[in-house]
C-alpha cells in the first residue's frame, strides 16, 4: 500500500466542490431561455379520465404551454417498459400493462402524471397547474398485494387478469416437499417486508433542451446510469435516435436505486422542449418524490424450513407475494425473482429450495430495486427464520448457523448461484468477539435491574453483487448486457483521464478509481482525472447499481490499463534498447529490471505523441479502451450483531450497539468502504425501526408523503457503528473485489428484529418496529 494507492485511506478528491457549495446538481443548471415545468398529477388512486380542460391554465400569466398525453402519443412517444422479461411457471410471459408518460385514459395511482405546464417561473407554473381541470370518473382502488389477488378486486390492467403480473417459481418442489415430510423439525413463519421510500436527499430533476437547428436533444437528469437512459429513451420511448440525444448526469445527490429508472418526467421534459421551443426544467418536490419515486420491498411471504435431527437444514419452501404498484418499473421484474430467490440459500448448505413468487399490480407507486434489491428480502426472510428455528430447537443462534455454514468453495446452491469464495465462520467469530456476545447475559441482568429489557440478535448475510455476466442475465430475461466500459487516455505530458461507464453519486469514484491507476502506474493521484456521467464524453456504459462499480467498473479500468501498460512497455523498451519483457513499471518510471536504466512515465507518454522515435509500425498515441464482462457474480458476506434495550413502559427501542463484520474481498479505500457500510446500516435500521410507506387502504391516498409523516432515520435515532473486515478475495475478477454498497442495508434489518424479539420474548413483530408495535407485542395485544 502506498500513501495514495490501493488500500490507502485517501481523503476524497471530489469533496472540495461539495464542501464549498460548488457541486453541480441538475437543479443548479440554468441555460438561456430556460422555463419551468410543473406536472399535473392524479389525486385519485384509480380513475378514468373523462376530459382534460387546459384552456384556463393556458391563459394564466407567464404560461408558455400546457401539454397532454394524447398529443404525446400522437407524436410517437412510446410507453414505459420493464426491461427484464420474466415468464410464469406455465411458460407465459409476464403481463406488462401499458404505462404512458402522461396518462390520458386511465390513472392508476395517486401521482400518475396527466399534463405538463411550462411557464416563465416556477410559481406561475404551479398556479397554472392548479387551473387545469381534469374530469375523473373515480374507480375502486386496491393497495395491498394480497387484497389485489382476491376475487372481485379492482382490475388495474386489462391484460393482467386478477392483477397477476407473473406466477414464477424456482427450485425443486418435489424434493422440498419430501424433505418437509420427513423432517425432524419444521419451522414455519410469515414474513412481512415493509414498503420503503428510497429518499436520496436530492430530489429527482430533469432539464430537456431541444436544439432546432441540429434537431438534437440534451437531457440533464438525476440518473445513476445516463447511458442506459439514452438507450432506453432512444430504443423504446422513441424520443430521439442515440446520435441526436445527449444525456448528462452531473453531480447526483444519492440514488439508492431510485435513480436507475427512466421516469415519465425526463421523457416529457425533452418532448415538451421540442413542442415549446424552450429548454424545460422540472425539479421534484419532496412530496412528489414520495408519490412517484419507485418504492422498494413490500413482500409478504410464507416460509417453511425443515431440519434433520442434527439441526441441519434440509429444505426451504417459500411462497412470496410481491407488490409491484401500478406499473412495471424498468428493472422491477428481476427484483423478487433473480435478485431474491437466488439468494435464499444464504450462507448455508441447503440441499433443497423451492420458491413461488406472485407479482401483483396495485394502485400504488411502482416498486423496483432499492438498496439491496431482493437480497434484503431474502436475508430478512432467511435470518428471521434461522433465529426462530434456533429458539424453537433450543440451541444458540450462532451454533445453528455455524452447523449449517458452507465451508467448501466453490459452492453450487440449488438456486443458480455458484459462490466462489467466503469464510462465514470468520465473520461470525469476529462479530461475536467485537460485540462481547459472551458478556451479554451479565448485561441483560444489569438492564433487568433497571427495569429494561435487553436483547441481542444476529444476522449472517450473503448477497450477489458485481452484476453481471451478460450471457447469464440474458438467459434469465435481462434486456441488456451488464458489462462495463472504460477508456484510459494518457495525455502527452503523462497526465491521465479515465473515462468510465460507472456513475458516482456519493460513492467516491473520482478517488477510488484514481487510486487504482496510481497504484498501477505509480503516478500522483492529482495527475489522474475520472470522467463519467456524460454520453458525449463516455461512449457507453451500464452505470452504477447493485454494488457493481468496483467489481465491474474498476475491472474494466484494470483491463484498459493492461493494454496501456503493454504499449508503454514497448515504447520504453525501444527507447532503452532493452527487451520488452524486461521492462517493469515502478514509481512513475519504466525500468529495465535489475539495472539502473529507466525512462520516466511522462517521457514515454511524450514519445507516444511526438512519434519521432517509436518502434517500427507502431501507431502514435497512448489511449486504450476495454469492455469488461464479469465471469460470475461476486458474493459479499458477513455477520451483523445488534444489541437493544426496550423500555417496557413505552415500547421504545434503544440501540445499544451495532457490530458489522463484512467480507468484501479486497478493498481499495477502507475509509470509503466504511462510509458505505455506515450508510447502509442506517437505512437497514430505518427499515427495521422507523420507515414504512403507508397508503390508506380504502382510497389509495399516500399517508406518508413528507418528512413529517415518513420517519427518516435522524442522527439521534442511531448509534455509532463498530465495523470490521475479513478478507477472502473474489476469484472471478482481476481486482478481487466483491462490492460494499448494499451490504449494510441487507444485513441489518434481521439483526435488529432478532434483537428486539429476543428482548421482549415475543417473536411476532413486523417492521417497522415502532414503539406502539413493540409495546403491543410485549403486552400481548
Amino acid at each position, binding site marked *: 500500500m502506498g500513501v495514495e494507492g490501493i488500500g490507502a485511506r485517501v481523503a476524497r478528491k471530489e469533496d472540495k466542490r461539495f464542501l*464549498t457549495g*460548488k457541486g453541480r446538481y441538475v437543479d443548479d443548471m440554468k441555460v438561456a431561455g430556460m422555463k419551468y415545468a410543473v406536472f399535473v398529477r392524479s389525486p385519485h388512486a384509480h380513475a378514468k379520465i373523462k376530459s382534460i380542460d387546459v384552456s384556463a391554465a393556458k391563459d394564466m400569466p407567464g404560461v408558455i404551454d400546457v401539454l397532454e398525453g394524447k398529443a404525446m402519443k400522437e407524436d410517437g412517444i412510446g410507453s414505459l417498459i420493464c426491461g427484464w422479461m420474466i415468464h410464469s411457471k406455465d411458460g407465459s410471459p409476464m403481463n406488462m400493462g401499458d404505462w404512458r408518460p402522461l396518462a390520458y385514459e386511465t390513472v392508476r395511482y395517486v401521482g400518475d402524471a396527466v399534463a405538463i405546464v411550462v411557464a416563465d*417561473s416556477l410559481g406561475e407554473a404551479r398556479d397554472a397547474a392548479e387551473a387545469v381541470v381534469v374530469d375523473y370518473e373515480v374507480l375502486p382502488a386496491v393497495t395491498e398485494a394480497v387484497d389485489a389477488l382476491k376475487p372481485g378486486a379492482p382490475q388495474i390492467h386489462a391484460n393482467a387478469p386478477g392483477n397477476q403480473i407473473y406466477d414464477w417459481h424456482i427450485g425443486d418442489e418435489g424434493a422440498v416437499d419430501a424433505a418437509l415430510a420427513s423432517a425432524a423439525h419444521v419451522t414455519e413463519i410469515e414474513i412481512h417486508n415493509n414498503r420503503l421510500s428510497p429518499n436520496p436527499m436530492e430530489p429527482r430533476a430533469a432539464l430537456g433542451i431541444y436544439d432546432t437547428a441540429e434537431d438534437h436533444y440534451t437531457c440533464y437528469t438525476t440518473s445513476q446510469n445516463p447511458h442506459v437512459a439514452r438507450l432506453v429513451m432512444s430504443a423504446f420511448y422513441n424520443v430521439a435516435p442515440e446520435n441526436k440525444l445527449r444525456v448528462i448526469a452531473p453531480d447526483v445527490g444519492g440514488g439508492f436505486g431510485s435513480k436507475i429508472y427512466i421516469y415519465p418526467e425526463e421523457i416529457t421534459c425533452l418532448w415538451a422542449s421540442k413542442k415549446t421551443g424552450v429548454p424545460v426544467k422540472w425539479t421534484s418536490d*419532496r412530496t412528489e418524490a414520495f408519490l412517484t419515486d419507485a418504492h422498494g420491498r413490500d413482500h409478504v411471504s410464507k416460509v417453511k424450513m425443515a431440519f434433520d435431527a442434527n439441526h441441519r437444514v434440509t429444505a426451504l419452501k417459500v411462497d412470496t407475494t410481491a407488490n409491484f404498484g401500478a406499473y412495471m418499473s424498468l428493472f422491477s421484474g428481476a427484483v423478487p425473482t433473480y435478485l431474491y430467490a437466488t439468494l435464499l440459500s444464504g450462507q448455508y448448505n441447503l440441499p433443497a429450495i423451492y420458491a413461488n413468487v406472485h407479482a401483483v399490480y396495485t394502485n400504488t407507486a411502482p416498486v423496483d430495486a432499492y438498496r439491496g434489491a431482493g437480497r434484503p428480502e431474502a436475508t430478512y426472510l432467511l435470518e428471521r427464520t434461522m433465529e426462530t428455528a434456533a429458539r424453537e430447537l433450543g440451541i444458540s443462534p450462532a451454533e445453528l448457523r455455524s452447523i449449517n455454514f458452507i465451508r467448501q468453495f466453490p459452492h453450487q446452491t440449488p438456486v443458480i448461484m455458484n459462490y466462489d469464495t467466503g469464510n462465514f465462520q470468520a465473520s461470525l467469530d469476529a462479530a461475536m468477539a467485537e460485540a462481547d456476545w459472551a458478556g451479554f447475559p451479565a448485561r441483560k441482568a444489569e438492564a433487568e435491574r433497571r427495569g429494561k429489557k435487553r436483547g441481542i440478535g444476529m444476522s449472517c448475510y450473503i448477497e450477489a453483487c458485481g452484476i453481471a455476466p451478460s450471457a447469464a442475465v440474458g438467459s434469465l430475461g435481462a434486456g441488456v448486457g451488464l458489462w462495463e466500459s472504460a477508456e484510459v487516455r494518457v495525455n502527452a505530458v503523462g497526465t491521465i483521464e479515465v473515462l468510465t461507464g460507472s456513475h458516482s453519486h456519493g460513492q467516491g469514484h473520482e478517488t477510488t478509481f484514481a487510486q487504482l491507476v496510481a497504484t498501477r502506474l505509480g503516478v500522483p493521484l492529482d495527475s489522474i482525472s475520472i470522467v463519467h456521467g456524460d454520453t458525449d464524453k463516455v461512449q457507453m456504459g451500464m452505470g452504477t447499481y447493485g454494488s457493481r462499480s468496483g467489481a465491474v467498473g474498476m475491472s474494466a479500468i484494470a483491463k484498459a490499463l493492461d493494454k496501456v501498460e503493454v504499449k508503454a512497455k514497448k515504447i520504453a523498451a525501444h527507447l532503452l534498447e532493452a527487451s520488452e519483457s524486461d521492462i517493469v513499471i515502478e514509481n512513475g518510471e519504466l525500468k529495465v529490471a535489475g539495472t539502473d536504466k529507466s525512462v520516466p512515465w511522462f517521457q514515454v507518454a511524450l514519445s507516444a505523441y511526438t512519434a519521432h522515435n517509436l518502434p517500427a509500425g507502431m501507431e502514435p498515441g497512448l489511449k486504450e479502451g476495454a469492455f469488461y464482462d464479469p465471469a460470475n457474480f461476486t458474493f459479499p458476506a458477513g455477520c451483523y450483531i445488534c444489541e437493544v434495550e426496550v423500555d417496557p413502559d413505552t415500547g421504545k427501542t434503544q440501540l445499544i450497539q451495532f457490530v458489522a463484520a463484512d467480507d468484501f474481498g479486497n478493498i481499495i479505500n477502507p475509509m470509503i468502504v466504511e462510509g458505505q457500510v455506515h*450508510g447502509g446500516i442506517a437505512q437497514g435500521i430505518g427499515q427495521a425501526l422507523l420507515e414504512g410507506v403507508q397508503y390508506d387502504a380504502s382510497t389509495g391516498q399516500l399517508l406518508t408523503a413528507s418528512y413529517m409523516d415518513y420517519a427518516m432515520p*435522524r442522527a*439521534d435515532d*442511531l448509534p455509532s457503528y463498530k465495523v470490521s473486515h475479513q478478507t477472502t478475495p473474489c476469484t472471478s475478477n482481476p481486482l478481487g473485489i466483491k462490492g460494499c454498497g448494499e451490504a449494510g442495508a441487507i444485513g441489518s434489518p434481521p439483526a435488529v428484529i432478532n434483537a428486539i424479539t429476543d428482548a421482549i420474548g415475543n417473536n411476532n413483530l413486523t417492521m417497522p418496529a415502532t414503539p406502539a408495535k413493540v409495546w403491543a407485542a410485549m403486552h400481548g395485544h
Partner: protein
Amino acid sequence: MTKVTLTVNGRKVSGECEDRTLLVNFIRENLGLTGTHVGCDTTQCGACVIHMDGRSVKSCTILAVQASGSDITTIEGISSGDTLHPVQAAFKENHGLQCGFCTPGMVMTAVDMIRRHGGQLDEQTVRQELEGNICRCTGYHNIVKSILSAADEMGGAQQAAE
C-alpha cells in the same frame, strides 16, 4: 414584485422578487448561489441552512422579503480563499460526506453548533443538535465524528489565542 436588499457573504446585493419567494429561492435563483439546497419543502431536512445575522436558519422557511436588510452567510462564504473552514476541512478529513447534497446545510449547522457550544460538544449533544438535518448517505457516523473533530480543533485554536 418587491425589492430585497441583503448583505450576502460580505457583499451588498439587491434584487426584485415576488412576495411569496422563499429566501432559499432568492439565494439560488436571483443570486446564483446554488450551494444552498432544497431537500424537503417542510423545514425538516436542513439542506437549506444558512446563517442570518449570525444564527443558523432554514432558508426554505423564511420569505426573501422578511430577510431584507439582514446579513446572510451561505456555504459559499465560509472558507477564506483556497483554505477550507475548519468544519469543512474536518468533513473532508473524516469522510463526513458522500453525495454532498445535505453537506452545505450540515456544515452551516455545525459551524453554528460549535459557536454556541464552544469546545463543550459530546457525541450525544451533536446527535441531538443534528435533529433538523437529514443525511441519507453517511448514517451520520462520520458527520458526528467530523463535527467533534472540528469542535476540538476550533476549541483548541480559541484557547491558544486567549
